[in-house]
């Protein structure tokens, strides 16, 4: 989405950059999904049945515990797409220290999409010093030239494209908002995101720039990690057709992250990592 928006999400990125710079344990080999706090949008209802329009409240936070609040986020880059395809801004919202909140009036039957995006984030990774310490700079390829120490080795700049989505359906589900934009990393059916059911196999297909994308790293985690020992996170990869199948064993909200990293032709980066987060509900059977 537009990078002309206020960069509250980018500021968050900067904070992560600082944090990560100090944490040598997070190495280059770590998946991109470890880069930043997962950013999630959690509607209080995913499926509505009433006869009149209803308000849904949506929490947003960046946190590693699913779904506990950690960091409130700027939501100026969040778009709402109505079932007829029209796009709206969320208007005013509350941004707290731990979470952000907005309310949304669901006044059209069908499936709505909530989509938040960070402006592109650039990290330059390098190795320096006698002990080959792995370090990162919050800078693109050109900016990094001035900032890198003289003995920097194995310099790689990565561009991260991060977005976070969720869906709400009033009455029967529709597919207008699920149509591919053929841009970046996208997720579609066969399983409608508002039709996932505990104990039933769900299947999603991942696309990059409109083409099915193999080897997308998928992580799936059910809600409530704070109150159990086992995170219950499933790590999967899309097959050659970009498909990923799983069977949720818990009802309730789930968190999906999808990550793919590829070489980039951009003058600002050597590699590009696409990171897509989705919150969805696994329903009672």
């Amino acid at each position, binding site marked *: 989405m537009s990078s002309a928006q206020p960069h509250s999400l980018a500021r968050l990125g900067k904070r992560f950059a600082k944090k990560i710079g100090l944490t040598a344990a997070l190495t280059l080999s770590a998946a991109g999904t470890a880069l930043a706090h997962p950013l999630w949008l959690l509607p209080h*209802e995913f*499926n*509505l*049945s*009433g*006869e*009149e329009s*209803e308000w849904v409240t949506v929490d947003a936070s960046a946190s590693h515990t699913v779904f506990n609040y950690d960091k409130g986020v700027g939501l100026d880059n969040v778009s709402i797409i109505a079932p007829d395809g029209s796009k709206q801004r969320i208007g005013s919202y509350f941004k707290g220290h731990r979470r952000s909140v907005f309310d949304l009036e669901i006044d059209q039957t069908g499936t709505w999409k909530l989509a938040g995006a960070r402006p592109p984030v650039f990290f330059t990774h390098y190795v320096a010093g006698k002990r080959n310490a792995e370090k990162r700079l919050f800078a693109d390829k050109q900016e990094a030239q001035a900032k890198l120490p003289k003995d920097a080795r194995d310099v790689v700049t990565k561009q991260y494209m991060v977005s976070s989505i969720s869906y709400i359906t009033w*009455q*029967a*589900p529709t597919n207008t908002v699920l149509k591919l934009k053929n841009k970046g990393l996208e997720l579609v059916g066969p399983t409608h995101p508002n*039709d996932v*059911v505990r104990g039933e196999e769900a299947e999603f297909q991942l696309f990059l720039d409109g083409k099915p994308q193999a080897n997308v790293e998928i992580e799936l985690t059910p809600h409530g990690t704070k109150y159990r020992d086992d995170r219950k996170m499933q790590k999967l990869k899309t097959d050659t057709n970009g498909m990923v199948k799983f069977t949720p064993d818990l009802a309730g909200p789930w968190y999906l992250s999808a990550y793919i990293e590829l070489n980039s032709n951009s003058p600002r980066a050597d590699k590009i990592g696409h990171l897509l987060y989705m919150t969805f509900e696994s*329903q*009672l*059977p």
Partner: protein
Amino acid sequence: MPSYRNILQAFTLSFKPGQLKTSLGQSSQPLLAALVLLSVLAVMPAHQVHATPNATGHIETDINNVEIEFTLPVIETGQYQRPYVAAWVEDSKGKAVKTLTVWHEDKKWLKDLRRWWRKTGRYQEENLDAVTGATKAPGRFTLSWDGKDYQGNPVKAGQYQLCFEASREHGDRSLLKQKFNLPGQGKTYRIKAGSELGPVEIKVL
């Protein structure tokens, strides 16, 4: 869209002479209808006769008939609200073929009949008015299915599943399911009670 009258027929539990007479009286060919009825009575065992007049006054015999008796339990609690209840039939692939009844107040909470709403409620706005009713106090109730789908066509012989779902504000949700075959040769099934619903007895003719 099924008329209220059709629904009454779908809910007709068994052969009711009084009702038949009335309907036959409206028929343009009462004598013929009576003859048809008599011939049917002659060839079929008494318990399999489920003669219901259709809109044109003709007699149809439904051997695919499912009779259901169930209980809404008395629940002793300070915050008792009558539960939302749905009963419907799914085919062997889990596709809903017919909703038999839905008891509710505000449609806003129909989604809390989770399975029913997902499988069929959300797709059937026009077909529902005829089978919906207000929530009911605890007691014993009867229902029947005439073996017809939403379009009013008799379903094929095979395996089906009767589903019952009840959801109560400040209470539990119960989902009861029973597979059965059509025709069922008079077989009776019993489903143990859940916390909000049951026991259920199903007789498949």
